[in-house]
């Protein structure tokens, strides 16, 4: 009997069924459609695991104790969580709800105390909860991914043409425009957001996975699932989202502009550049130090040429290990009561707006710069400023080739593309500084 009353079929709730379907959908998109599979396979699978009824893999010890709601355990928890409950009192759904809310609102010490009590009573943290705490709660996961990305990034094209940094700046309008969009939805009474939530949603416009996860883990951890899914899904959709916008904002003649070949960049410049970025961070935006610091560290290991072992590990074993856990951890936030919510629809809707605005601003900035510079700038490379490395640069190249089959923009677009990574990290730092 315990086997039956403890089975999934007996306990499953509608929300869990829906979320498992969402997880399967993410796996389908990742495997069949090739949507950023490195992240969406673990996220989708983690989402399914998080919604297995009764298993509590995504819950802390205290949350598991509240779920099973034995009266004597609740009585012990009541003190730590400051809930009015006496031993022996009937365990109604309202009582459970009161405990859940008290736990969610509790500070660091109260949470520790409640988990301690739950562990005294034989409950444990779920596997995914542990992953989340270690990998995302500590912010280490996104930072290590960023280090690996730094070790994979070649700043050569950017160094050959540093002006393209401005394209990476302009595309960040996608981030802040989305914040305005969220405020608008709130103002219209369609959805409710706090400024923290609005900022975390905006970061989707950065088109950069680890930055999105990092910022939302700091500002609005309860939205991390929807934000990460939205960010990675739209990054995969860049080849569909960007071209119409790019074509609408440019004439065929502009798209056919040929750019001059990039100058060769010396090894020394590549070594010194991450240090220049780091010093700029030191002087102007300490709050971007974790993100940009790890990024520059990865890039320095790559370029300095004397720590190949470490650079290889950062680009392979380490980033792969972290990716597995990061994906499962993000998946752990795909639980019904946090994901099946109007806000998620809002996040998905705002996410595509973010990409569109970023793309448009990048292109417009490139058109503007083309007016003021001697050497010609093809406005198509502006769209690469959203980052989504290297997809957005490839899109620039492809649309450019359509207009002029001799027009190879890939290398020129890599400059704004990596500039977009720096730009989003700076925007993230500003948000954390002002709101965090």
């Amino acid at each position, binding site marked *: 009997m315990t086997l039956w009353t403890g089975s999934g079929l007996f306990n499953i709730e509608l929300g869990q069924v829906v979320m498992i379907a969402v997880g399967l959908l993410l796996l389908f998109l990742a495997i069949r459609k090739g949507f950023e599979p490195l992240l969406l396979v673990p996220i989708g699978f983690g989402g399914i695991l998080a919604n297995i009824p009764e298993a509590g893999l995504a819950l802390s010890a205290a949350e598991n104790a509240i779920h099973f709601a034995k009266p004597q355990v609740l009585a012990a928890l009541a003190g730590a969580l400051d809930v009015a409950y006496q031993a022996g009192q009937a365990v109604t759904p309202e009582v459970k709800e009161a405990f859940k809310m008290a736990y969610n609102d509790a500070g660091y010490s109260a949470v520790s105390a409640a988990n301690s009590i739950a562990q005294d009573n034989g409950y444990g943290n779920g596997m995914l909860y542990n992953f989340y705490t270690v990998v995302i709660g500590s912010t280490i996961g996104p930072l290590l991914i960023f280090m690996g990305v730094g070790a994979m990034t070649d700043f050569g*094209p950017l*160094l050959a043409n540093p002006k393209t940094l401005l394209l990476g700046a302009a595309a960040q309008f996608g981030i802040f425009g989305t914040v305005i969009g969220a405020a608008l939805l709130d103002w219209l009474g369609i959805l409710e957001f706090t400024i923290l939530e609005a900022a975390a949603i905006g970061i989707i416009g950065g088109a950069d996975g680890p930055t999105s996860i990092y910022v939302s883990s700091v500002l609005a951890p309860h939205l991390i699932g929807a934000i990460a899914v939205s960010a990675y899904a739209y990054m995969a959709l860049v080849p569909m989202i960007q071209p119409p916008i790019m074509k609408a904002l440019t004439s065929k003649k502009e798209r056919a502009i040929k750019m001059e070949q990039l100058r060769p960049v*010396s090894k020394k410049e590549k070594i010194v550049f991450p240090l220049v970025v780091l010093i*700029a961070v030191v002087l102007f935006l300490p709050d971007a130090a974790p993100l940009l610091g790890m990024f520059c560290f990865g890039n320095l290991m790559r370029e300095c040429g004397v720590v190949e072992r470490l650079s290889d590990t950062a680009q392979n074993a380490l980033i792969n290990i972290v990716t597995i856990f990061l994906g499962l951890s993000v998946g752990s936030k795909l639980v019904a009561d946090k994901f099946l919510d109007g806000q998620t629809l809002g996040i998905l809707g705002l996410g595509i707006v973010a990409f569109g605005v970023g793309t448009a601003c990048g292109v417009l900035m490139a058109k503007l710069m083309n007016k003021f510079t001697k050497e010609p700038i093809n406005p198509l490379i502006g769209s690469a400023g959203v980052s989504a490395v290297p997809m957005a640069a490839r899109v620039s190249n492809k649309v450019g080739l359509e207009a002029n089959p001799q027009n190879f923009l890939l290398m020129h677009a890599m400059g704004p593309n990596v500039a977009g990574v720096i730009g989003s990290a700076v925007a993230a730092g500003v948000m954390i500084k002002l709101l965090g």
Partner: protein
Amino acid sequence: MNEQLMSQAVDLMVAGMGFVFVFLIILVFATLLMSKLVLRFSPEEPATPTRTPRAKSSASPSVDPDTAEAIKKAIAQYRSRHKK
């Protein structure tokens, strides 16, 4: 509905985009200056062309592509056989 949200969002945009542009403009000039300094103080270094992103690991191109292809296949075959 949150009364202040819109004004907060606008403030955030102004401060944020302002700072992003200031930071990246500074970076443009810092990078130009850095490149100039580096090139002045070590003009003799043979520059690596931008086109080959992983110049470090690329060996001399004296092996013709066909041979390379044959070896590539052999390696794959070897791996698929001997991998545990």
